């Protein structure tokens, strides 16, 4: 019945964003790192759409979040292809095993 306001949406987006970067930083499974990337992009999308509703963005915020969704799907496809190649070469998806370039 009443508006929630802008700040709660920004806080939810901040929690999603931080969960995404902690997932990217600490997971050893390559697919887990990809899931962290999806969480980060969703946090940013919530910010865009919240400012489209409560700020001055208008339809620009929703159009930009559409582009973000499309680009995230495309990047997930390519990242998955890379992960499959990694698995074929190393026979494991553990990203700690990718240390051939270690000095």
């Amino acid at each position, binding site marked *: 019945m009443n508006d929630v306001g802008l700040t709660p*949406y920004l806080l939810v987006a901040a*929690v999603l964003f931080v969960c995404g970067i902690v997932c990217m930083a600490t997971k050893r499974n390559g697919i887990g790192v990809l899931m962290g990337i999806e*969480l980060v992009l969703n946090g940013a999308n919530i910010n865009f759409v919240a400012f489209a509703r409560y700020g001055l963005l208008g339809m620009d915020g929703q159009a930009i979040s559409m582009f973000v969704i499309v*680009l995230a799907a495309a990047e997930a496809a390519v990242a998955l292809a*890379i992960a499959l190649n990694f698995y074929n070469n190393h026979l494991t998806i553990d990203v700690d095993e990718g240390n051939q370039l270690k000095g």
Partner: protein
Amino acid sequence: MQTLIFAIYALVACSAAIAVVVSQNVVRMAFWLIIALGSVAGLFFLLNADFVGATQLLIYVGGTVVLLIFGVMLTASGPMLTIKSAPGEVVLGGLAGLAVLGMLVYATLGVDWSANRAKLASKQSVAETQSFRSPEEGQSVRKLGSALLGVRFDKDLNTDRKSLSTGYLLPFEIISVHLLVVLVGASYLARTKRRRAGMVAAETAAG
């Protein structure tokens, strides 16, 4: 009522995101990611972004997460489903995450949004009311579609502007080409590779 629905969606989204980080099994992580993305779609619907919410459900939940689950299926075997990180790394990552969260929360709560109230009050454009339905029932499809075609009638209609607002036709075309390139590139990158000659010789020597 809207506060209650927002509280439900926000709590489910945040706890599902935390569960993605905390889970050790990658299949459980994928399930919690589905819950988190679905709750984010609910938040989009609360923000009157009906088309973006529907697209989120279609493409993220119905496409990207299914792709990730395919990846889990193709790259996981028994002993590799739960790859644990070292405890020191987990603690360090958690502390860094809490520091970033504290910074973001402090920055968000420290902004004085009331300073923009005059600008926001004048934002209610005429095109906002020229629709058959209320904003909650969804009126963003036509505006989004024409914005992607380069016509911004939500900004230009019934105003006496000297020049037209910027549309999104060029990014739309770029993204179309980008999707085609990604389709070809990912298919080529993930194709079945020809077996190397050494492996074939080893098989004939053993058999």
